[in-house]
């Protein structure tokens, strides 16, 4: 291998950049690669399909299983092309059977599921290593690049699937719409029709997809391998030195060198002592090992570094007895725990207090919504002061009519007021009428209509009318009105029925 002949710009690259380089490489030699792959695989696929016509799945599985063998062809082309000698299609095909011989069985059996297949292939095919040597070599190579190689294989599998589905969809889209209208998917899936050709067609699509993808896959693995070796063996530095040497080999350079050496007379001081002059103690093998180890234990080979981090306390097992000093720490912990529970209690209290404050702040809103929920005015039986008046039975005299009669002569307004108040009290307590402070006189009468008591209704109407005339109209009532009202009251509420 002569590095100076490579067609690549050799320099250490990032792994992903190396994969990118592989794609470029495959693109440059795409014709040979694609044609070689197609010429190689299509007949094999045709043969397998014919052999297993009744079992398309097996045909595809076998073909897929043989992929590592086919992959040796693109690698051969690429490795030749790396040094500028691109083999023709015929040459590469002719070389392929020889390439197959090496470790074909391992490739098809225990190494088949390997995820780093394309990366490992050059070790086998180009370096021609086997057994323990190969294992060692791969160990070194894998140290930095195995991850990328695995990702390459995984992404590749997905790409294959996507392209395969895409091709199938393209075919489906090419079907005329009329044909699709009569298409019954259920029938297609469940019926026992002879759909073998369709499955073989699908296999063919997969094989076609591989024609594009597999050369790319091999090229990417190969470029990853090259990159790893560039890192390991410093190919770029070697190349630089070689270029330097070539430049210095010109005659002019030799002349200049000779002149310099001739003119410069070296002093003895400038010369280093010859190794023979120093009487270094002869080191035994053990002593040398000792010294090397000591050297390695010192900087810069060994740099101790103190790292402090949190880790979980190990639970279970015999906990060692804590030293005496730790007891103080323990009590400190206990204090901290008390403080924590105190803080927790305080936080809960703050939360409850906040909720209470919030409720107090928006109490009007809560009341509004509560009212909207129970919009029907509740009968307020127990309230003594309803309607802005004192209507509790205790506040009224024993004999309402008698008291009103007595007051009528001097204070007719007070007398009618007393009667009206007593009427409301009766309505509220005897008849359980749901009266509110907001009810006007007219509304009280309307509520009274519900009771279906014509006599009471008529009396209440008359009384309310008189009351309104006195209260809002400021008019004098006819003298006979007082008597009539009292008589009406006695008729409606005879004495003794006082609540």
């Amino acid at each position, binding site marked *: 291998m002569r590095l100076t002949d490579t067609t690549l710009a050799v320099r250490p690259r990032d792994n992903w950049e190396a994969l990118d380089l592989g794609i470029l490489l495959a693109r440059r030699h795409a014709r040979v690669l694609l044609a070689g792959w197609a010429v190689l695989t299509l007949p094999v696929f045709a043969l397998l399909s014919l052999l297993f016509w009744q079992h398309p799945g097996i045909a595809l599985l076998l073909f897929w299983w043989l992929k590592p063998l086919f992959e040796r062809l693109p690698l051969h082309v690429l490795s030749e092309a790396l040094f500028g000698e691109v083999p023709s299609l015929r040459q590469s095909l002719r070389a392929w059977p020889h390439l197959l011989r090496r470790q074909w069985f391992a490739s098809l059996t225990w190494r088949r599921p390997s995820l780093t297949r394309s990366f490992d292939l050059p070790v086998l095919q180009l370096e021609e290593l086997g057994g323990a040597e190969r294992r060692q070599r791969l160990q070194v190579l894998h140290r930095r690049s195995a991850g990328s190689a695995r990702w390459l294989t995984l992404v590749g599998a997905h790409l294959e699937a996507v392209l395969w589905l895409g091709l199938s969809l393209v075919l489906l889209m090419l079907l005329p719409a009329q044909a699709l209208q009569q298409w019954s998917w259920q029938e297609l899936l469940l019926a026992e029709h002879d759909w073998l050709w369709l499955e073989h067609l699908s296999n063919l699509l997969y094989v076609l997809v591989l024609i594009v993808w597999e050369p790319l896959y091999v090229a990417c693995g190969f470029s990853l391998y090259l990159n790893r070796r560039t890192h390991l063996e410093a190919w770029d530095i070697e190349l630089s030195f070689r270029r330097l040497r070539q430049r210095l080999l010109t005659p002019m350079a030799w002349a200049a060198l000779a002149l310099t050496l001739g003119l410069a007379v070296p002093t003895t001081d400038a010369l280093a002592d010859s190794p023979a002059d120093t009487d270094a103690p002869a080191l035994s093998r053990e002593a040398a090992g000792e010294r090397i180890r000591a050297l390695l234990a010192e900087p810069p080979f060994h740099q101790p570094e103190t790292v402090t981090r949190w880790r979980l306390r190990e639970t279970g097992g015999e906990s060692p007895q804590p030293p005496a000093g730790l007891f103080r720490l323990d009590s400190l912990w206990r204090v901290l725990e008390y403080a924590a529970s105190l803080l927790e209690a305080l936080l809960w209290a703050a939360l409850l207090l906040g909720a209470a404050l919030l409720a107090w702040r928006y109490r*009007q809103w809560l*009341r509004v919504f509560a009212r909207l929920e129970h919009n029907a005015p509740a009968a307020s039986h127990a309230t003594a002061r309803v309607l802005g008046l004192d209507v509790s039975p205790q506040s009224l005299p024993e004999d309402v009519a008698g008291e009103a009669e007595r007051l009528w002569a001097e204070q007719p307004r007070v007398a009618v007021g007393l009667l009206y108040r007593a009427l409301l009290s009766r309505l509220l307590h005897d008849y359980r009428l749901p009266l509110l402070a*907001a009810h006007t006189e007219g509304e009280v009468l309307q509520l009274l209509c519900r009771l279906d008591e014509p006599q009471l209704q008529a009396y209440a109407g008359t009384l309310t*009318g008189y009351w*309104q005339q006195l*209260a*809002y*109209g400021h*008019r004098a009532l006819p003298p006979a009105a007082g008597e009539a009202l009292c008589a009406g009251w006695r008729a409606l509420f005879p004495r003794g029925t006082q609540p």
Partner: protein
Amino acid sequence: MSESDSQPTPAPADQPAPLPPRQRAAQLAQALGQELRKAVIGQDEAVDGLLTALLAGGHVLVEGVPGLGKTLLVRALARCFGGEFARIQFTPDLMPSDVTGHAVYDLNSEQFKLRRGPVFTHLLLADEINRAPAKTQAALLEVMQERQVTLENRALAVPQPFLVMATQNPIEQEGTYPLPEAELDRFMFMLRMDYPAADEELALVRQVTRSARADMLDVAPLQPRLSARDLLALQKIAAELPLDDQVLDYAVRLARATRDWPGLALGAGPRASIALVRGGRARALLRGGEFVTPDDIKGCALAVLRHRVRLAPELDIEGLTVDRVLRQLLDQVAAPRL
């Protein structure tokens, strides 16, 4: 009126004789109401509201979905009313000068002459008022409050009585301009027309299909019942009805309660208190009463307040209506006692 039926008439025989003009006025107003109900079927509440506003001398905004007879109601009133009537159909391209009037140059006299707009009338129907842009709506501001129009630096008084009756449609928002608060506040009442009850709708359909006009009730057979002078006299009588301090206090308390009521973002202004009292007086006259009771105030509270308050956004989101919140308010404000 619903209350008037249950309202007792206290022993008239022993009373000092009631003032005849008040009774006559009540009869006249009730006759007008009966005439209106011939044309507008199933909208008694709206008819009562309109009559109340007429007696109180306030402007009315009638709101309702199409086809409930908003315009018909106002046209019927114009027919029953002997004074002048003008109608403006509000359209998006209507200009303020189309409403108030403008100066035109007269070639013969070589002078500018004032051409008075349709507002110079007794009854003005502003149909679909929210279809005109705000500047045209604003042309009504001055005339509604001050009963005058300023044209070419001259303040021209409109004839008395002057009433604006506007209609608007609450559901259509496309291409409409909501009335500004200042304009809304100048309307004394906002009446809502709802769908008529089943039997009333039956009567309505029977009557409409019998009439000569294809799809609407005819207002031609209605008789004029009221002249402009009569109306002024009625308004004067209504304004002089006695009002107890407690009732006045109740009206003011109602208006003030809207200002700090939790469900309302914006409360009613002092115009609401004034409208409540005036509306209460007119209602009392309409039912034939001699004085104003709290029932009269409460009866017109919804129509006075519903366009003057704004619902809090929280309740708006809850899907509550202004009417429901106002009813709740009316259920909470204590009525006057002893």
